[in-house]
């Protein structure tokens, strides 16, 4: 397979990945529109119910007045007819019952709709990240091939699912070229390390450019932000951004804010949930880990942030061949 063919494949998968995230973003609009229509209909029903209730009260007062007059008239030996007031009250009460039933029935339908929508959102929060992760894996593999310029024969041998051991082999075989291999490889290895060494559980998350690399959780910790670096000298070097250093509370807060904004490139159903966790926990309380993978030595180090910008080694000398 020629490099141009591989590039075309990468572009095609990337375009579908973008379409998938775009689909997720666009599906928010119909949900918002539906909610607006629900709100409008509820308001109309509330108003109709209030109006019907007012009518009942007016009719009730009219009937009471009529009955008082009828009692006075009877005292003087006259008859005072209140049947029209009584009929009007019955009619108003029937209308109130009817509107109340319509309202209850609508509320029930809305409850059912909201329950389905909640399931839909939860589904999108888990299925979409699985799909984007799958596509990212495809892109990473093809990128890696492109960069290490493996032959077409080797391309066929790529494992479809689970590539940690393949990645390790690639690193071993192509140390000189590894700095050209995209970050996806490092992230994949980092995810494997955190899962195996620290028993962390990866959270559903749609990775976007300039956002978190990966997100995890651990017992009692709802969110852990992870950065992954491949560095030939094995040193921890974090990017400085307009929102502060990568992994800093300011940076986490800024990324959380971007992910919560509908219409932003970072928003998806899953990322909105991550943004909610950032807000709930507070950026300063969210543990941040950075893994530095050294392709020269084949070793990796894990750092954790202490305070605002003080990074300490959590574990060093992890053998990448094990992954």
């Amino acid at each position: 397979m020629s490099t141009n063919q591989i590039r075309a494949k990468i572009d095609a998968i990337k375009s579908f990945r973008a379409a998938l995230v775009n689909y997720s973003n666009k599906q928010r609009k119909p949900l918002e529109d539906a909610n607006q229509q629900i709100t409008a209909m509820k308001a109309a029903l509330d108003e109709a119910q209030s109006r019907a209730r007012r009518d009942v009260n007016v009719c009730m007062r009219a009937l009471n007045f009529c009955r008082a007059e009828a009692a006075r008239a009877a005292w003087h030996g006259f008859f005072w007819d209140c049947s029209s007031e009584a009929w009007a009250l019955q009619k108003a009460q029937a209308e109130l019952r009817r509107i109340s039933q319509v309202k209850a029935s609508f509320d029930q339908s809305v409850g059912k709709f909201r329950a389905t929508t909640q399931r839909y959102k939860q589904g999108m929060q888990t299925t979409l990240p699985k799909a984007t992760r799958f596509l990212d894996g495809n892109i990473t593999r093809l990128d890696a091939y492109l960069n290490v310029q493996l032959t077409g024969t080797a391309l066929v041998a790529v494992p479809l699912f689970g590539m940690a051991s393949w990645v390790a082999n690639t690193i071993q075989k192509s140390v000189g070229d590894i700095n050209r291999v995209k970050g996806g490889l490092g992230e994949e290895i980092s995810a494997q390390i955190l899962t195996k060494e620290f028993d962390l559980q990866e959270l559903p998350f749609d990775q976007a450019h300039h956002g978190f690399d990966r997100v995890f959780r651990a017992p009692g910790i709802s969110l852990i932000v992870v950065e992954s670096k491949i560095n030939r000298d094995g040193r921890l070097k974090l990017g400085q951004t307009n929102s502060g250093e990568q992994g800093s509370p300011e940076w986490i807060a800024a990324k959380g804010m971007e992910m919560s904004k509908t219409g932003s490139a970072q928003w998806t159903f899953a990322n909105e949930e991550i943004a909610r966790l950032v807000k709930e926990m507070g950026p300063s309380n969210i543990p941040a880990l950075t893994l530095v993978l050294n392709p020269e030595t084949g070793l990796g180090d894990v750092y954790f942030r202490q305070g605002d910008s003080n990074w300490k080694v959590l574990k060093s000398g992890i053998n990448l061949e094990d992954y």
Partner: protein
Amino acid sequence: MNAIKEQSAENWNVLRQILSNVRQAWSDETYRYFEARLLSELEKEHNMQQRAYAELEEAIRIAKSALTESR
């Protein structure tokens, strides 16, 4: 409300169209995995939501009709 259901359906159709355009980028095995494990799941969720829109549409129609009657 029907417009909302259609809008949602249109988003899904666009996604399917783009997928068919890039179909050749994957091996058969990879595509089958994606279709069976992930796309079918997304489609199931999409269809479930489409039914919910249809039911809500009917509830809104009934409520509107009841309000017209009361006026």
